[in-house]
């Protein structure tokens, strides 16, 4: 038997079947968590906000446009939640010390990849919040300039300038001599 489509699960959730929504969460929780983790760079907060995104989605399931794709929509909800969270906090994100606790035990090649990934995450985390969200929407959610401008309700020129500056900063951090 084929697995139910997202649309079927949404319709079931609308009829009050929470387990159907649970199945949707299972499908998208990793990608939604990673949106939050890339933006927040703190595992606990990222998991909390990913959970919050799903709770909000569940509350709005009756008004969700069934013709839209659920995955991109929930990732956008999560990205916006993270942006609001960062703007309300206005603090520099601290490095999550626990995230690579076992990296020393990994093989050399894997360890190199892990270290580089960590450098990219740290570089992303060092960006201003409004730059970070645009990088997330452009590079990970593959939205166009116009879509980002609509999503964040900012002028197109701001989208471009923030994105290009963010890339410049990332390049400086990632390619700086040790």
């Amino acid at each position: 038997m084929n697995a139910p489509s997202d649309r079927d699960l949404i319709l079931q959730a609308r009829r009050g079947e929470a387990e159907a929504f649970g199945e949707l969460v299972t499908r998208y929780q990793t990608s939604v968590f990673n949106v939050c983790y890339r933006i927040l760079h703190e595992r606990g907060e990222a998991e909390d906000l990913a959970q919050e995104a799903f709770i909000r989605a569940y509350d709005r399931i009756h008004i969700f446009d069934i013709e839209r794709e659920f995955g991109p929509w929930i990732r956008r909800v999560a990205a916006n939640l993270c942006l609001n969270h960062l703007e309300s906090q206005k603090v520099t994100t601290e490095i999550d010390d626990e995230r690579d606790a076992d990296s020393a035990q990994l093989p050399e090649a894997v360890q190199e990849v892990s270290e580089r990934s960590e450098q990219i995450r740290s570089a992303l985390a060092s960006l201003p919040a409004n730059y970070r969200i645009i990088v997330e929407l452009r590079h990970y959610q593959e939205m166009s300039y116009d879509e980002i401008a609509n999503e964040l309700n900012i002028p197109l020129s701001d989208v471009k300038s923030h994105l290009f500056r963010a890339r410049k900063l990332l390049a400086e951090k990632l390619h700086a001599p040790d």
Partner: protein
Amino acid sequence: MHLTDNQLNEYLDEATNERAQIESHLSSCDECAARLSTLQSLFVEIESLPEQALTRNLAAPFTLRPSLPVPQLPTFLTLTVILQAAIALIVLIIAAPFVIQLIPAIEMPSLPNIFSQLQSQWTSWLDILSTFQVPSIPEIPILEMSSLAFVLAGVSVLWILGNGLLLRNQMK
């Protein structure tokens, strides 16, 4: 003249109308081609970031809903009920022969007699009802309310009080 950073970014984002001109310039300018390559590498690096695994299941609040407990009688009450049923059964078995002996001795009224008794009862009830008078509700001169309005008001108050009692727990 070299390409600007904005032009290179827009080219890689596929958000430019000058695609042909940019490509023409890139084919003849090593410096701009190198800058484009560096920017492209950055894109690859950013987008190659591996996904991290969750440490908890976010679906749990939706899938692990506690099922409602099935109401069960206390053990002592269950045992009492079983004991009572057992005693009743034993008594029935013991009493059955005596009851069978007594049945013929009991004079059962015939069916027509039962009907005639019921009919006379019914007639007497109708007589009582025909002579029954509802006591008049005293009018309240101050409020100048009719007895009907008074009854309606009383019922409304009772209805509101009843609803209040029913919803009391939900309002807490």
